[in-house]
């Protein structure tokens, strides 16, 4: 198959270190960026941990895990091979079934965003730039260097990233051909074939065969993770017992953590939160507006908007992000537990319910948001779009109209990873949260 040839070429090419990485400048850049990243991580963690009283004890694990970006201790993969991914549509079950460690790279760090800016056009989305910077400087969250980066053809920028940065990243890209639409049967069949081919690639590059038993086991363990996530998700439907900034951190941990460890820690957290619900130990009172976050994903350390919103008195009770609910909410059901049915089932799960704006039409996102607003008794929606993230930006007006019709207030914010717009955003958020409070107050009367 053609991809086998490509990979071989790539692995030959990677033996002599790629040129851009041999210069002194690169070494200096790596050193300063690592320091910046560590500082950024610590600052963000400080805000998350210290500015909020009564954080659940079980969150300590996740706070510690997030400090991996500070470069102190990397995630131990127990000698497993690592396959990196750059988007939510990569079936991680296949990677797990090949005894490899899936690592989602989507970056949230401003330090690496600045590195990416050197090589990508100025108007590129910070997430893509940050991801590139992370790969270029080898600042992976795990101790093992990834064997390959699986890059789904989602938005234009991610789609092109693999092609334009081969001289910057010394691991091979694998392009996962995601269709631009998901409702048609043709797209579905095409995507099933793509995923089938991808499973062969994973087998090839890891040298491990994806057997029926292993795939079944990995599907079940992801289902277990989803069961715990959904439990957590449902807990947030009631009076708030956990801040949104923590929720985002938990799902972020799923990007790089060992899945079993992640499950057991979320389980522990859920138990603690259930106790809090029982003891009526809430983090905010009834007057605090319940907020839904959507749009471009908040990824640690860039938790600017969630942290600001919550310090200003709002509570984020739900997120419709590809870094949170879109990644873990929807499940797989397999009818016949054989490879021939498991792989298409996985393909369906990663395509059909996905509400990423790169699909058109994307009516499902409107429906999903409306349902979430109902389920979580949302008072207001904050729509985050990154400067350069065209797709979320383009959908914001459409979503705004739908929400207006539904009687839900929405604040649309364009931002990026730099700390510069902090003041401006803070003012807007404050006004929004206050107006929601007033509205709630009037409605209660």
């Amino acid at each position, binding site marked *: 198959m053609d991809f086998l040839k490509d990979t071989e070429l790539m692995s030959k090419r990677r033996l002599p270190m790629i040129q851009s990485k041999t210069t002194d400048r690169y070494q200096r850049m790596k050193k300063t960026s690592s320091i910046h990243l560590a500082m950024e991580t610590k600052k963000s963690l400080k805000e998350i941990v210290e500015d909020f009283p009564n954080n659940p004890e079980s969150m300590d694990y996740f706070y510690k895990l997030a400090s991996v970006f500070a470069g102190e201790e990397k995630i131990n993969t127990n000698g497993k091979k690592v396959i990196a991914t750059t988007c939510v549509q990569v079936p991680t079950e296949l990677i797990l079934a090949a005894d490899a460690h899936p690592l989602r790279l989507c970056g949230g760090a401003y330090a690496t965003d600045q590195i990416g800016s050197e090589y990508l056009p100025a108007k590129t989305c910070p997430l893509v730039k940050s991801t590139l910077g992370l790969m270029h400087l080898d600042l992976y969250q795990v101790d093992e260097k990834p064997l390959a980066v699986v890059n789904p053809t989602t938005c234009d920028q991610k789609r092109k990233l693999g092609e334009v940065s081969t001289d910057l990243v010394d691991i091979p890209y694998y392009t996962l051909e995601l269709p631009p639409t998901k409702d048609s049967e043709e797209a579905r069949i095409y995507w099933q074939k793509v995923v089938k081919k991808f499973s062969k690639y994973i087998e090839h590059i890891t040298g491990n065969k994806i057997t029926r038993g292993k795939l079944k086991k990995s599907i079940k*363990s992801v*289902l277990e993770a989803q069961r715990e996530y959904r439990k957590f998700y449902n807990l947030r439907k009631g009076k708030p017992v956990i801040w949104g900034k923590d929720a985002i951190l938990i799902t972020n941990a799923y990007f790089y953590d060992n899945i079993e460890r992640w499950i057991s820690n979320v389980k522990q957290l859920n138990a603690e939160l259930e106790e809090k619900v029982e003891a009526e130990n809430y983090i905010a009172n009834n007057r605090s507006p319940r907020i839904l976050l959507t749009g471009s994903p908040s990824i640690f350390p860039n938790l600017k908007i969630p942290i600001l919103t919550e310090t200003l008195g709002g509570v984020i009770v739900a997120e419709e992000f590809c870094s949170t609910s879109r990644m873990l909410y929807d499940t797989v059901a397999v009818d016949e537990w054989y490879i021939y049915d498991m792989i298409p089932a996985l393909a*369906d799960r990663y395509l*059909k319910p996905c509400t990423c704006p790169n699909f058109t039409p994307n009516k499902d996102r409107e429906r999903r948001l409306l349902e979430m607003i109902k389920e979580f008794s949302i008072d207001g929606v904050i729509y985050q779009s990154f400067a350069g993230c065209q797709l979320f930006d383009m959908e914001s007006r459409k979503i705004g109209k739908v929400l207006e019709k539904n009687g839900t207030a929405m604040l649309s914010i364009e931002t990026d990873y730099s700390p510069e717009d902090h003041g401006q955003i803070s003012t807007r958020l404050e006004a929004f949260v206050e107006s929601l409070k007033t509205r709630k107050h009037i409605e209660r009367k």
Partner: protein
Amino acid sequence: MNKIKTYLNNADVSRFRFWVQIFTFVLFVYGGYWGITIAQNLPIFACPYDHATGGTCFLISLQHQLHTTWDTLFSVRGFALLTAFGTFLLFFFFLNKAWCGFICPVGTLQDWITKFRKSIGVRFSRYEETTFKYLKVIKYLFLIWLLIVPLAIANSFFGLPHMSHDWFPPFCTICPARVIMPLFTGDVSQLAIDFSSTPALIMTTLGILAAALFIVGSFVKKRFFCLFCPMSALQFLFSKIAFLRLNKYGDKCTKCGNCYRVCDVGIKEIADDVISKNIVKDDCMMCFKCVEACPEDGCLEVAMFKIPILTASENGFFKRYGADEQKEITDDPK
């Protein structure tokens, strides 16, 4: 009350269905040996060519009642047709298309063939969307055929000569159930090809072919024959007013497609239609596998007289599909 509800929502409906199917299969294939006759005019393929059948299929009565001249049809004798039809509807209204999924012995037989295929690890096939669209129509053509031919044998249409009686019964002779079901009681007489006249030859040959196709088809395709079943077509005409319902609340649907994946008859609307409440389509056999596979609380619902008896639930889904399932895969067949 809530406990019962949770119990039902977490139940393994497929296992329940498996046992019901065994019970009804024995009842309708061998019931005659114990002198059991449940009823005539049933909305299932309980085939009277099997001499031990525990009931009869409505289609055979329908063909017999229609095998009459116009005069008699519109006289007092026509009441016989109406009562037969009324009985059929009465039965049908209670269980809607669940007759197909839970009771029909021919459906059960196909499920068993599927089970056999599964046990040897052979993959199934699915129709392409367009093929499926065309094939769906065949059952309605069969229905029209079985309604018209008996009348055309007894009457003259537009001055044309009467059809030969050897075409009768027009559907039963080509129905795979006629050939296969008697085999379960050791009766091989239906395997014969009748050379007495051209229509008889054509019909019996088609019957044998249909039976062969039935076995091969249901091996590679789940519920192969149901797609062509005229009973299914006839049932669907009245499905909208039946008491047992399969409802979908589209707002809750995330279109994850779990329901479509597990659907044995391949109904795409179950996943993609987020507007219709009544989601029973003409090929649906109401096996409720979709409800089992739906992880959204209250998205799919089975209701009898508007009282929900089985509702899709997150807990139920994880119980059925999640990690703590007892049956673990031990070895790899390949």
